[in-house]
């Protein structure tokens, strides 16, 4: 009888650099744990003392108000001490390297770093150079694991079984940090993932990831249970990607008329935000019964509480 192992709840990974190496068991554990934290968020007192004494640094080299606030909220709900560090107020402008910046912060005795950085792979670089737990809050167009996890938690509320569930990501897949994490996570849980967008915004060779590719939004609607509409980031597009917002909305935008004509029963529409109303999604969809956009935001805090809890858990003894 081995009782210590029986109720152990440990992730297979030390950090959250991406979902690429997370197993289905890991993901299940995170989503389960997140539902308990969501229950905490429904209470009058939304804070638990779980991570009292733990210090988390939010290291944001790129602006991302939403993600930072969501992480900060999760940290505070868990009673962590948080420190925010953003590139604007930092010494990186004076030419300090990432390693030095991070090492200096770590020398102040911290436990975890949440990092947003424009360079893919930067969180892994940090993980190799620091002793702290690293959580990737988005690294360039690579991964954004907590976004995918909150998307998955939101999907599960409406569609309890991932097995065979058809989830399609629509829009700018090429520049997205959300797409890859969603593809890895959803596929591991048994979902069938598709992508849809102008061919210029779909990365070459994406089929090797085992996703379906649609270039017509109507077709994507017909063959999906969930549509996750990604933001069109104007600043990233050259004239060679697509001609303009008007044509984008006309050809690829998610409108109520399109949904009513093509959507299967019980379709769910998601968006990681911030929304460009009237571009990738129209208001009569974003604010409709199809949409679970605001649930995603709530779930974002719960999922981040869950990963912080699971990654910062039972670590002290490991060393001794």
């Amino acid at each position, binding site marked *: 009888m081995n009782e210590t192992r029986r109720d152990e709840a*440990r992730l297979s990974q030390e950090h959250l650099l991406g979902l690429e190496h997370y197993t289905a068991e890991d993901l299940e554990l995170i989503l389960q744990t997140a539902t308990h934290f969501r*229950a*905490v968020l429904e*209470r009058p*007192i939304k804070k*638990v*003392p*779980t991570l009292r004494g733990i210090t988390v640094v939010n290291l944001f080299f790129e602006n991302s108000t939403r993600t930072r606030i969501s992480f900060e909220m999760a940290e505070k709900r868990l009673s962590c001490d948080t420190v925010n560090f953003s590139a604007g107020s930092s010494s990186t402008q004076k030419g300090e390297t990432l390693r030095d910046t991070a090492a200096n912060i770590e020398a102040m005795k911290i436990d975890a770093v949440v990092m947003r950085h424009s360079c893919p792979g930067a969180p892994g670089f940090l993980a190799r150079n620091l002793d702290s737990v690293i959580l990737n809050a988005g690294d360039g167009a690579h991964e954004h694991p907590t976004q995918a996890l909150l998307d998955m938690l939101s999907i599960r509320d409406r569609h309890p079984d991932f097995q065979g569930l058809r989830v399609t990501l629509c829009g700018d897949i090429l520049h997205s940090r959300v797409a890859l994490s969603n593809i890895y996570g959803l596929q591991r849980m048994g979902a069938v993932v598709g992508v849809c967008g102008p061919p210029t915004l779909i990365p070459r060779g994406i089929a090797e990831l085992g996703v379906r590719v649609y270039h017509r939004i109507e077709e994507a609607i017909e063959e999906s249970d969930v549509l996750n509409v990604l933001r069109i980031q104007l600043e990233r597009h050259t004239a060679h990607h697509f001609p303009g917002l008007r044509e984008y909305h006309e050809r690829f935008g998610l409108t109520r008329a399109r949904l009513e004509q093509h959507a299967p029963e019980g379709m769910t529409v998601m968006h990681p935000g911030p929304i460009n109303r009237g571009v990738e999604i129209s208001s009569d969809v974003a604010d409709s019964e199809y949409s679970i956009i605001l649930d995603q935001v709530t779930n974002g805090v719960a999922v981040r509480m869950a990963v912080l809890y699971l990654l910062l*858990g039972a670590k002290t003894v490991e060393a001794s």
Partner: protein
Amino acid sequence: MTFREKSRLSDQENMARTLSRLAHEILEKNGGSRDLVLIGMQSRGVHVASRLASRIEELEGTRPPCGELDVTFYRDDWRMSLKQPVVRPTQIDFDIQDKTLVLVDDVLYTGRTVRAALDALMDLGRPRRIQLAVFVDRGHRELPIRADFVGRNVPTGPDEEVRVRMSEQDGEDAIWLVERQEEAG
């Protein structure tokens, strides 16, 4: 860590009698089941609470509201343990405001879990009073906490632990004294 079963302290019949006595004591002390709510602590306290509620229902005709509490988020010792605790549901579908709340667990030991439970309950509302009912008190308290209702006192040695096994979860009703064994190899 592995444990060897040392001796069986209670069987099914014994446990049922103890449970019945605890129900009587709770009713007696509180003058009936009015404003009484039971909260079982995850995981086996939940089963003890549910059985107590059923027994009270038999005695009083009404079943007191019965909830489940997981205290993982409130523990002060989980980061020092080797295992990462599995979070279990907290399910309290009724108002605990101004109620007489009986907190139920299977074994009372250091008192730290009860301390965590008190903190958790304070975050959930303001009961008029909180009482503690346990199936077994095995001693070795680390905090100034005592139970209001005790099924059985079992003094334990440094290498001993008490396992309450319940048919809902473990396939049998029994209380075992177990002994920690040296890890092989």
